[in-house]
């Protein structure tokens, strides 16, 4: 790739100016975005960014800079400025930043795909969206319901990265990905009631993924269920009951109440002014947080996953991380800065979403490991319960202790059988109670993942992730309200 010489020049320049550590990352991102609003192409667009991000550590102070004009003079100027800023900030530190020691790597990686999205014509991409819209409208018509809100987006992305640091590590990476997004609003003509749901898809794959996703079918099913919720869903009862959560809710809970609070930078307070801290403290490693059958993993190495990578943005080889093992807090997510503070090795959680962003601790693909229950076995002994298959609204406090998920597609379970739809059941629960209430987990074939863009950092860095798992059963829960 052009301008790679400037990356190496930036690292040389940083060393020459006295930086203890210096890294530079050239990153080129090309995206195509197609957006359809209510059946009409709202916009077709291209996004392209290309630049160099540089980070220096001087006397224990850290500074980051970026540029998108390629000249030796500007690189020199920006590195000089970064070194100066790092020195100034180091004076305020009582404890210098020390990075974990990691092996020197000469590596490269890329995602495997069949159909390069960049080779697919815009016509084909637009047609794919129009097919989805048609399918939604036909479903609405068949069910005699209106679907006045249909926002559908299809994007594809190509990313090239070249990372170099002054320890000798050099890593090249190429990522190809496709993502889809839909928000569907259904109206019942007789009552004027509204139901609404969104859907996210994403994978590091070529355009062949569209066939696997079958978005027209998925969106038609979503439309149909929204109509059914409008017409059939009944208010849930308020008494204590058992709840079976579908993969989508298990996944978001893994992400929000395990992944985030186990990010070591949050534990150390580095994100305190924005996304907050964590109820999990350093000394809680080894403490019980859930039932023994609970194993929660974050794994960047799942091929074709939305959060896939082989080396993180500090050049550390990616690996699977057990955040909770047998119900016990097992491992936190680290970059080299937090690993240095904890006295451990980095487990390759450093990600930066663009050339102009610093690498920070992030999740990749977070999930609950499967158990051995079939879906029928999960519900067979439930006298009174709810099966919350999907959710709409959710949130969690900034210490990741008190979370809430409102069921969208949710059913009453009575005497071991799925009955009618229930309207907006609310699970509002603390994190230890959530993971300790699980007494049964579905088997591997029931596993599903959902794509999402995870927000963190300042400026915000929206990182592609997956989260998921099989369905799981929680005992003795009282619905919130």
């Amino acid at each position, binding site marked *: 790739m052009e301008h790679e010489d400037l990356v190496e020049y930036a690292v040389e320049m940083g060393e020459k100016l006295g930086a203890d550590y210096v890294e530079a990352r050239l990153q080129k991102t090309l995206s195509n975005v197609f957006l359809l*609003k*209510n059946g*009409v192409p709202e*916009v*077709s667009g*291209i*996004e*392209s960014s*290309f630049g160099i991000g540089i980070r220096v550590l001087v006397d224990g102070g*850290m*500074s980051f*800079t*970026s540029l*998108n004009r*390629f000249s030796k003079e*500007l690189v020199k100027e920006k590195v000089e*400025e970064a070194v100066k800023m790092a020195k*100034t*900030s*180091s004076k*305020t*530190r*009582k404890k210098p930043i020390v990075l974990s020691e990691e092996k020197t790597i000469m590596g490269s990686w890329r995602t495997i795909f069949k159909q390069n999205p960049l080779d697919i014509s*815009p016509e084909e991409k*637009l047609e794919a969206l129009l097919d989805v819209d048609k399918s939604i409208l036909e479903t609405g018509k068949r069910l005699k319901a209106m679907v*006045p*809100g*249909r*926002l559908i987006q299809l994007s594809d992305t190509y990313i090239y990265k070249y990372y170099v640091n002054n320890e000798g590590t050099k890593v090249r990476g190429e990522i190809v990905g496709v993502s889809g997004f839909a*928000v569907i*609003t259904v109206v019942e003509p007789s009552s004027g009631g*509204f139901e*609404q749901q969104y859907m996210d898809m994403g994978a590091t794959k070529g355009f062949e993924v569209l066939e696997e996703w079958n978005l027209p079918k998925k969106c038609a099913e979503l439309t149909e269920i929204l109509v059914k919720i409008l017409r059939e869903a009944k208010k849930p009862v308020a008494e204590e009951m058992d709840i079976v959560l579908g993969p989508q809710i298990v996944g978001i809970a893994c992400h929000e109440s395990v992944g985030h609070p186990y990010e070591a930078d949050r534990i*150390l*307070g*580095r*994100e305190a*002014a*924005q996304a*907050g*801290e964590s109820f999990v403290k350093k000394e809680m490693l080894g403490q019980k947080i859930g039932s023994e059958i609970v194993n929660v993993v974050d794994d960047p190495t799942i091929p074709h996953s939305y959060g896939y990578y082989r080396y993180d943005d500090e050049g550390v080889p990616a690996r699977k991380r057990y955040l909770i093992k047998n119900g016990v807090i097992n491992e936190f997510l680290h970059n080299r800065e937090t690993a240095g503070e904890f006295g451990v090795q980095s487990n390759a959680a450093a990600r930066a979403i663009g050339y*102009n962003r*610093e690498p920070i601790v992030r999740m990749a693909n977070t999930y609950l490991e499967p158990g051995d229950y079939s879906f029928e076995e999960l519900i067979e002994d439930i006298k009174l319960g709810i099966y919350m298959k999907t959710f*709409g*609204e959710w*949130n969690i*406090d*900034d*210490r990741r*202790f*008190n*979370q*809430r998920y409102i069921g969208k597609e949710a059913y009453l379970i009575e005497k071991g059988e799925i009955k009618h739809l229930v309207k907006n059941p*609310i699970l509002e*629960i*603390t994190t230890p*109670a959530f993971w300790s209430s699980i007494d049964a987990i579905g088997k591997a074939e029931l596993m599903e993942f959902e794509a999402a863009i995870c927000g963190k950092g*300042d400026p*915000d860095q929206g990182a592609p992730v997956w989260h998921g798992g099989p369905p799981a059963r929680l005992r003795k829960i009282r619905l*919130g309200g």
Partner: protein
Amino acid sequence: MVEADIYDLANFIVKEGLKLSIDEIATLVSKTVERQVRFSNNQITVTKTWDDITVKVYVAKDRRIAMCEVTNIEKNSLKENLNKLLHVIKITKEVEGYEKLPDGPFTYKSLSDTYDPKIEQLGEEIVDFAEEAINSALNAGGKRVAGTLYSEYNETVLVTSRNVEAKDKGTRIKITVRSFADEEGVAQGMGLSVSRILSKFNPSKAGEKAGETSKMSLNPTAGKPGTYNVVFGPYSFANLLDFASMAFSAFYVESGLSPLADKLNQQVAPEEVTIVDDPHLPNGYNSRPFDDEGVPTRRNELVKNGVVETFLHNVKTAKKFKTKTTGNAGWIIPHAWNIVFEPGNRTFNELLEDVKNGILIENTWYTRFQNYRTGDFSTIPRDGIFLIENGEIKSAIRGIRVSDNILKLFSNISGFTKEVEQVHWWEIETPVIAPYVAVKNVKITTATK
């Protein structure tokens, strides 16, 4: 003066675009020099500097449109992207309710207090502002202080093939200070200072507010679910107004994502409530004299005496809604500039006395909607949650959630202060000027296990 390089770049793009036999083209070129200091645990975590040029291009041909946003500003790359746009535009479909870009030239209002050379010239000394805020929070009772400080110099040029040439330059500086008065991290407080000019920037005051609030939040008891009269602080109410500002955008109205869709000319709040979008606000964090279509921006009353007066439009949404642009383009999505909730006549203490018994919520985050069309949502209070008893702040509470409907909340507003604050931070996209606002009968929930 805006630097010649981005002005020349914008004209180069328009000239090259017109060579491709398109109907019209607009380009928005921005140069931003930005500095950031992030701090946590009472020390600097990282400093950052950015020096970027960003180019956005809009092209239209045969009632079809395509756009690009690029940071690769090499001329060959720009030409290549224009050619790509031309290809995309040939195969895309006609835009419903297409309207051409407005014909210029226009005259733009000169804005006050939006540029300060002292901010443009700031260098490494911004670290001192961060230290000032940290020390102030510690002196006020904080034990651990975290935050972010930004300073920015920005130049923006808009050139369109419809005879528009608009230029703006501005500066910004803001700090978010978050203080914790206990080890557990539940005694929290936040303070902000948001300004376009250095003389109105006060990091010390932001630190003091954060430190004091965190100290007041010590030893919180568990909040109880129920229906309460709530006083929302400027930060928490700004969070709700930020979402409300999206609801006024005609794009979201049309997409089925606004609870205001059928509320035009209807009463949505008590008569005392007036909410304005003011792009000319002196020292307004997002004040700008022109929108992305080149139309001069103007002050729009969104809610006047409790009644919804208008949605926010660009020329295309305006055509679909059979009205005129409000000067809020966004080529695709019209958006607000600075949301201003007009001040009331009560002091903070008088407002507490009016409410008598209830809850004071200084800040919220993670606002999520179950249904954007109906407005059902919840949000999580933080950075100071207090019980109000007999018109006074009694004690801190924790672990509560506001679980309600945004339309109901606005219709239940019972009073607001004359003191207002400009709010813009990580959680808030559109700058908001908000008072303390009292709302009756707000539903509060807690975890059941």
